């Protein structure tokens, strides 16, 4: 028997062939009954060739009216007949064959003590339930199959295995147990969703859990692991209890799994073919599957999971639109507002600490779900805003509308951030949210200054300035942010306010204990932010950051050389002036008492000398003042320029944080933000 099983297994799983006749093929049909229709058709055709008669003909001849007696008992004949009709149904899809199979197998109802009969009885009725869309019947048949076939076979199977009696001729249907596991798994996890029976399956969650628990795929000598559904079963079982479950609902898990699969297919097609009609269709199908999953979600945990996934799809779509410059006709019922609404509900529901009632195993799982949804909301928002900004740049005619759309999306994200990034609620906010808020603040400013046409209102410009300041407070290590602020101020003729706005930011950095600790501990990026901190501690460097962004450090260094040369030239000139004054002084030593007759002759000469001396004195005084100024410039530039040049080290930091939502520095931004809020609150209390 075992050898026969092994042969049959090879026949099905490995695709080789052997000469057998139909009774044997039908008796071992549990080996290949779960094959995909195409594979099953091919297999049955091959068996037909080997047996010299097609299954259809064999069935008609052997089990139809006026059937030929082949010597088998009635029970066997009925069972084989039912199996044959089932195979024809599964291979061809004709429900008529299924009806015949059901009609035949029902004649075995008084002989169900035989496990083989019982297995086929419940299997065939389960297929009938799927064909008719009767989900409760399907669940009932599968539970009965487990209870009356699987459970009784498990102990004998293990005993036979232990005693190496698997090959014993009398081991009978017991040896089929690994195939039964496989078939049950495929019927529940693959066949039922395909047949549209995709809800009210939750009682079968128990069977899926048991299948994953050392059952499916654990008999590699019978079914190679690679050919079993073990990995799929384990993934589903893990999802049933993981952070993306809906309190263990199988219906939800299958719906989400299907949607995820369709999403991945659509994503792959998008990457390969771009936004062609088939891609858009695949995206719609995936979005529809997510809608179905959302409908299956009973808990906020489940809803949050669906939104996290579907926002990823939305974000990818925006990114692809931006990248490909195509605007396909693709809409879904999912929105960022909807996701924020789910987030709000999830937060409120968990605020009282009763995570279990929301379907979460622990507070960690609850927070993990909140964070995941948050990050998808922020990523999708930023992607959508970027898309609108790109459109604004590409199509000036649309710049007005597109830039405002981007600003609105950023503002919504900032509002969301502002509501939760408080001392009481900050646990609900992931570390990466603080940099994302920086991006949104900066993005708002850019949308209204760099991308909007000239019709920006003074109120919008004022808002842009404020958002640039907010951005610097959230992430002061991006030196281009300071230049962006001065540019926005320049649009309003308010350049002079730069230092008033930037200095508090710089002082905040210089005083921050969080930054100090980060640098002292040598955490990731410490040297780069230390360079930025030293620059911000110097008012001259701060001015450089605001106004010298367009000039390269080399140009600034050349400027310093010019000042030095000018200063040296001036110093030289002043030396000359001083020497000249000294020479005049020697030639005209003091005013002696002049003789009366000579006084009238010398008076003009003396007057000229005094005039020259006075000019020299004035020139020297002016020159010295100018020299002092140049000295101050040289001194300041000599000190500040290296500090400013050192800030170039921080270039690329923002890109790194943008690319890595798990970058350690996100944690620093969180601490800095709450440190500032805490200091502001203390200051407010003191005043």
């Amino acid at each position, binding site marked *: 028997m075992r050898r026969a099983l092994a042969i049959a297994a090879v026949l099905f799983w490995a695709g080789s062939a052997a000469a057998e006749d139909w009774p044997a093929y039908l008796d071992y049909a549990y080996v290949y009954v779960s094959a995909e229709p195409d594979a099953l058709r091919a297999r049955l055709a091959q068996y037909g060739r080997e047996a010299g008669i097609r299954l259809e003909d064999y069935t008609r001849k052997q089990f139809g009216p006026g059937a030929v007696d082949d010597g088998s008992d009635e029970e066997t004949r009925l069972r084989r007949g039912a199996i044959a009709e089932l195979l024809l149904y599964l291979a061809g899809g004709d429900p008529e064959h299924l009806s015949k199979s059901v009609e035949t197998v029902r004649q075995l109802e008084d002989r169900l003590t035989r496990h083989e009969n019982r297995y086929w009885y419940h299997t065939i009725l389960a297929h009938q339930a799927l064909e008719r869309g009767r989900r409760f019947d399907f669940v009932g048949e599968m*539970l009965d199959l487990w209870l009356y076939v699987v459970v*009784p076979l498990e102990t004998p199977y*293990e005993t036979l295995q232990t005693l190496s009696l698997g090959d014993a001729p009398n081991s009978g249907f017991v040896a089929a147990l690994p195939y039964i596991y496989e078939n049950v798994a495929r019927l529940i996890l693959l066949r039922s969703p395909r047949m549209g029976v995709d809800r009210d399956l*939750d009682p079968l969650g*128990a069977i899926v859990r048991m299948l994953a628990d050392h059952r499916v795929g654990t008999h590699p000598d019978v079914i190679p692991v690679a050919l079993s559904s073990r990995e799929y079963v384990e993934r589903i079982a893990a999802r049933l209890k993981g952070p993306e479950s809906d309190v*263990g*609902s199988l219906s939800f898990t299958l719906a989400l799994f299907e949607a995820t699969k369709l999403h991945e297919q659509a994503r792959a097609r998008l990457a390969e073919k771009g936004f062609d009609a088939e891609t858009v269709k695949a995206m719609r199908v995936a979005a529809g599957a997510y809608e179905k999953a959302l409908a299956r979600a009973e808990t906020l945990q489940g809803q949050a999971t669906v939104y996290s996934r579907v926002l990823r799809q939305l974000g990818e779509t925006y990114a692809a639109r931006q990248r490909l410059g195509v605007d396909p006709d693709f809409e879904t019922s999912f929105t960022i507002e909807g996701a924020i609404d789910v987030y709000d509900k999830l937060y409120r529901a968990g605020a009282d600490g009763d995570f279990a009632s929301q379907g979460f195993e622990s507070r960690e799982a609850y927070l993990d779900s909140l964070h995941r949804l948050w990050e998808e909301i922020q990523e999708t928002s930023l992607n959508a805003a970027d898309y609108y900004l790109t459109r604004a740049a590409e199509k000036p005619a649309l710049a007005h509308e597109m830039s405002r759309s981007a600003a609105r999306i950023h503002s919504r994200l900032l509002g969301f951030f502002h509501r939760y990034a408080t001392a009481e609620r900050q646990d609900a906010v992931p570390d990466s949210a603080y940099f994302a808020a920086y991006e949104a603040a900066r993005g708002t400013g850019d949308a209204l200054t760099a991308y909007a046409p000239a019709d920006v209102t003074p109120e919008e410009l004022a808002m842009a300035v404020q958002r640039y300041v907010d951005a610097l407070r959230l992430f002061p290590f991006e030196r281009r942010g300071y230049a962006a602020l001065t540019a926005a101020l320049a649009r309003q003729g308010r350049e002079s306010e730069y230092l008033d706005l930037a200095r508090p930011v710089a002082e905040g950095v210089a005083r921050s204990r969080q930054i100090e600790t980060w640098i002292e501990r040598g955490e990731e990026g410490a040297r780069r932010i230390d360079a930025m901190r030293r620059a911000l501690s110097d008012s001259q460097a701060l001015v450089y950051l605001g106004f010298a962004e367009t000039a390269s450090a080399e140009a600034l260094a050349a400027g310093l050389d010019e000042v030095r040369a000018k200063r040296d030239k001036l110093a030289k000139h002043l030396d000359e002036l001083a020497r000249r004054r000294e020479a005049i002084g020697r030639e005209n030593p003091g005013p002696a008492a002049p003789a009366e007759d000579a006084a009238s002759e010398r008076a003009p000469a003396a007057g000229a000398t005094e005039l020259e001396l006075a000019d020299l004195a004035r020139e020297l005084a002016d020159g010295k003042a100018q020299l002092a100024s140049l000295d101050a410039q040289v001194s300041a530039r000599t000190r500040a320029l290296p500090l400013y040049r050192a800030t170039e080290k921080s270039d690329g930091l923002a890109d790194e944080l943008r690319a890595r939502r798990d970058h350690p520095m996100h944690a620093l931004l969180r601490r800095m933000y709450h440190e500032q809020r805490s200091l502001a609150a203390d200051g407010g209390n003191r005043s």
Partner: protein
Amino acid sequence: MRATPICVRLLLASLSLGLFACISSDGPPDQLVPEVTAAEASTPLAGEALDARKRDLERAYSDLTHFQETLTSLHYRKDRNGLVQFSQFLDAYLGVHLDPMLAGEWQSRHPELSALDANVRFAKAQLLVQLAERGRAADAMDDIATRFKGREDMLVAYPPGKQTPLGKALEQLRERKWKG
């Protein structure tokens, strides 16, 4: 000789008729040898039987935890149809499979199996509590108390995922029964 009372004669007559009826039936009775009890049938005789029972208990325990998870999910989702279907399944599972396996006395005393046996019994009792089968749950708990009398310090896996002395675990389980 005293005359036989009519009532005694009638009784004898009926007995003889009954005997005749017995004698006159075709063939032997259905069971020549009385059916053994489940407890006797499951007594281990050799090492493999012990190993087999160990595997059975281990499998039953993990299956019961899967049932509990599923039941919790169905309760949470207020899935009435699912609860009805699954409860029927569990009822049959307990009656057809688990109870006969647990009927044996020896496994509760066997040093290699007693802890596992106790774990399965606790899991079963917990499942009955989840099913709101208070009477049966109480019976299961009483059975645990009787079987493991004097061994209240033995560690059992209750609540799930924790090791608790049997006596204390039983108290907690009884407490839970009334809380539902």
